[in-house]
């Protein structure tokens, strides 16, 4: 522990990030610029989330990291180890036991509680960026609440595909004011963003933006009256635990086109199997 300042970042950097977090909470959905630091990992590996976590963690925390729902992927394991080493915090894979959860592209299936903080890693924080490349222009559009272009984009989806084809990073309107990119979570997770008891913080390291959703904030996925928002998932149950209500990953299992669907949230799947739930291709817990 003597080699690093607590949670790696220096105190002045943490103060700057903390001020940005407070302004982000005061203006839900608005992207606060911050002076993102070089981190000992490349951009795209969660440097924004890591900086937000570093500014929030305290020694008593229990920290969980997920990457696409999984605790055991390279990105999740390395970030977990990073904070084990630099902040000395306890870590867990159980959603319910964690006080701070850093996530890439998923919201855990287990409902979050009042005392939890969810930190999202965000690649492109600006929901209008693919429609308008100029930061000057998008900033103006947010200031003027000029979001017509976003509805045009969703409408083009409908005219081309017959339905809104946007499946992840589905834009939302926060507290009736700012349109926000919820990070590339599947739209299946969008309904969990609003009226959530936990504090949700979003960090984009390369793009140098922090934004936030306070608890119990109204979050609406953009849609049309005749094409309402739909939280979609693969039409299957988890092959291992049988869950019908969780977001599923498709796994190719052979060269013949064989496939199976399994829970993307590894902790949720593990807990269900431990409780005795067995899917179509799952073995009962304890049997190899």
């Amino acid at each position, binding site marked *: 522990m003597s080699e690093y300042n*607590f949670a790696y970042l220096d105190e002045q950097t943490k103060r700057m990030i903390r001020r940005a*977090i407070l302004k982000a909470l*005061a203006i839900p959905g608005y992207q606060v610029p911050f002076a993102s630091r070089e981190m000992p990992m490349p951009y795209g590996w969660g440097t924004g989330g890591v900086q937000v976590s570093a500014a929030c963690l*305290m020694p*008593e925390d229990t920290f969980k990291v997920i990457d696409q729902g999984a605790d055991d992927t390279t990105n999740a394991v390395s970030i977990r180890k990073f904070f084990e080493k630099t902040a000395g915090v306890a870590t867990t894979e159980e959603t319910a036991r964690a006080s701070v959860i850093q996530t890439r592209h998923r919201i855990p299936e287990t409902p979050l509680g009042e005392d939890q903080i969810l930190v999202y890693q965000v690649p492109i924080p600006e929901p209008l960026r693919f429609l308008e490349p100029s930061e000057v222009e998008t*900033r103006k559009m947010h200031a003027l609440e000029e979001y017509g272009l976003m509805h045009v984009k969703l409408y083009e989806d409908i005219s081309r595909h017959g339905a809104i084809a946007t499946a992840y990073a589905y834009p939302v309107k926060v507290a009736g004011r700012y349109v926000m990119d919820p990070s590339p979570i599947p739209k299946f997770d969008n309904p969990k963003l609003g009226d959530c008891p936990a504090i949700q913080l979003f960090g984009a390291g390369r793009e140098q933006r922090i934004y936030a959703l*306070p*608890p119990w904030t109204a979050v609406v996925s953009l849609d049309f009256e005749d094409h309402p928002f739909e939280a979609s998932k693969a039409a299957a149950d988890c092959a291992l635990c049988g869950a019908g209500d969780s977001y599923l990953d498709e796994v190719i299992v052979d060269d013949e086109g064989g496939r199976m669907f399994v829970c993307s949230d590894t902790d949720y799947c593990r807990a269900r199997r431990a409780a005795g739930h067995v899917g179509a291709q799952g073995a009962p817990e304890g049997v190899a």
Partner: protein
Amino acid sequence: MEAAALGGGFGDAPVDSARAFRAVMRAMARPGTVEVVAGAAPPAPLSVAAGVAVLVLCDPGTPVYLAGGHDTRGLRGWIGFHTGAPVVAERGDAMFALGVWESLAPLDGYALGEPEFPDRSATLIVEMDRLEPCGARLTGPGIKGGAALSLPEVAAFRDNAARFPLGLDFLLCCGDRLAGLPRSSHVEAG
């Protein structure tokens, strides 16, 4: 520089400020809830909670305005030594303003942010005689249903919320307790 200015800071700054920030963040994220903080022993008339907020949030990049009776030599020295924050004479130049409500008000003149950068706005750290979850009624983000907070008045906060997304944010301090009131909270007489 008086010797008294040198004491009263965090004993273990990285860890103390991490715990204190959690309390400040929870307060700002959940308007109407009162958090207890510790770790600072600032000179009078600054409360422990306001002192903690200053230590957690202020540094050479954040001009501080000391309103009324809070503009003391002792406090200038303490803030200067522990945070390096410049003390400014004009409220419009401040990122943080400190004082009792009567000295801080009226709220004209503080930085409200700009339409394209509403985050460039001042945070007012208000010293209160009492801070209880009763009185004015709060609704908005961070609040399930409604909350109540003993605010010094209603009209100024209601007008502030009406400017959203521009506006001021408040940390209300009393002894070692603090509550947050962001611009997103709608305030009505309770």
